[in-house]
């Protein structure tokens, strides 16, 4: 499963993995803004943006082919609207939609593939995302695997009983059961939190400070994005 693979990638080791999450998010945002505001996106421009992502992938010791493949998940959606554009006579728009969405997805993959989600989320909190939201995301991710596995088992059990076909009512029943179990689990978690002294506010460990390497990475990343953007022309 996709998120399982990404989990594994994110716990690897490389210069990029070791950088602070905040810094990586900011560099990603700079890249995405540069890419989004480049209009029109020429073949040369797309190649340059692609080269930057590829370089980051290699530096992060992530599999280039694997990443390229996973970024292709955007293509069905992008392809549909590219088709609409071509039928409407706007071939340039079609190329833009496909190239920009693909390269953006690839860039996000580099971030997600080098930063375990909990660290990424703590980084987002440092950048201003409210704690309540980041807590919900952390709990969501914590139990994503557990509940997904439960869903898989239930699905297989239901399929086995239904002779290979999942009937609508059975699917609804499975979903309802899963919901009930999830709700009960949430109550159990609450009890576990109370048992260890939870009194209404989540206290968290401190985040490590930014290091020199982090600051340099930030500077370099922002500079690269800006340089690329300026080289591509006027504001679109």
């Amino acid at each position, binding site marked *: 499963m996709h*998120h399982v693979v990404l989990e594994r990638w994110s716990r690897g080791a490389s210069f990029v993995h070791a950088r602070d999450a905040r810094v990586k998010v900011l560099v990603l*945002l700079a890249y*995405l803004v540069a890419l*989004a*505001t480049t209009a029109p996106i020429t073949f040369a421009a797309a190649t340059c943006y692609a080269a930057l992502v590829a370089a980051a992938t290699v530096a992060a010791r992530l599999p280039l082919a694997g990443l390229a493949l996973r970024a292709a*998940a*955007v293509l069905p959606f*992008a392809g549909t*609207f590219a088709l609409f*554009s071509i039928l*409407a*006579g*706007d071939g340039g*728009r079609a190329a*833009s939609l496909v190239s*920009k*969405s*693909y390269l*953006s*997805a690839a860039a*996000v993959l580099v971030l*997600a593939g080098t930063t375990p*989600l909990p660290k990424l989320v703590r980084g987002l909190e440092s950048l201003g995302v*409210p*704690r*309540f*939201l980041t807590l*919900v995301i*952390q*709990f*969501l991710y*914590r*139990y994503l695997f557990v*509940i997904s596995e439960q*869903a898989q088992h*239930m*699905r297989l059990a239901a399929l086995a009983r239904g002779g290979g*076909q*999942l009937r*609508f*009512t059975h699917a*609804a*029943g*499975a*979903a*309802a*059961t*899963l*919901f*009930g179990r*999830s*709700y009960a689990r*949430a109550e159990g*978690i*609450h009890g576990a*939190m109370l048992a260890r002294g939870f009194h*209404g*506010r*989540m206290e968290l460990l401190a985040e490590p400070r930014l290091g020199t390497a982090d600051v340099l990475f930030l500077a370099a990343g922002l500079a690269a994005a800006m340089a690329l953007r300026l080289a591509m022309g006027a504001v*679109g």
Partner: protein
Amino acid sequence: MHIPDGFLSTPVWLALDVTGLPAIGLLARRARRELEEARAPLLGVTGAFVFAAQMINFPVAAGTSAHLVGGALLAIALGPAAAAVVMTAILAVQAFVFQDGGILALGANVFNMAIAGVLAGYLPYRLWGAGGRRRAAIFAAGALSVMVSALLAVSELLASGVPVRPAAMAFLLVVFGVSAVVEGAITVAVVRGIERLSPQIIRQTAAERSWVLAACGAGAVLLAAAGGLVASTNPDGLQWLGGQLDILGRITNLFTAPLAEYRARWLGSPWIAKAAAGAAGALLVGLISIALGRAAARTRSA
């Protein structure tokens, strides 16, 4: 309908990032102030449930299957404010981990699905869920939630210049219609299942109905969706809409009048006016959403 990066024009994604994300931020900060951090595990686990439930394939017809989107289910089970936060968490994980939806486009997707979609998934239930038409109300909640999100998304694409000719639009509307019906059916089935298995979870709708508030909310959401479509196909549509709604017109004029002088400095690009009007409209809906969220949250604590 998660919009990836590279689709929306800068005025559109920027305006929605600046209005949609802070709106959720307000909801989240309020939750922290009211010591609701104890609810974070429940919200997170429910979000994980929605993810997992999306893996359960509901057979639709002739070998095709659909899956639960979940906005209405969340709104019915948790209330609109909590549902909006959970939906945002889901969208964030989908964007970062699954690359389903862009990062710059998060504002747009949050606005479409976590704010408008959740509201549209809650209002029918809130208005009619207590009576004899409960199943129809829940069906409407599911269907509207998907329909409104999809329409808003298409409006944003159109406003960004993505060409969708009538034939393509018809195709999209058919797809949205089918998804809406399916979502309605799945939502009804799952809510009924939950009521049977764990009756205490689904809150019963309050006896009192705030008609005015609900009507305003419904009106705002549908207006935004319809207006968006009209505006994007007709460049003067925003002006026309603004004229119809005095308030929106005044706000638009406020923004565009002084800015008209500065237009020349922006390399002749007229996108500021569009962005301002769009932002004003989005802000209006956003504010109404927050007001509704607060009202609903207050009555929720029963």
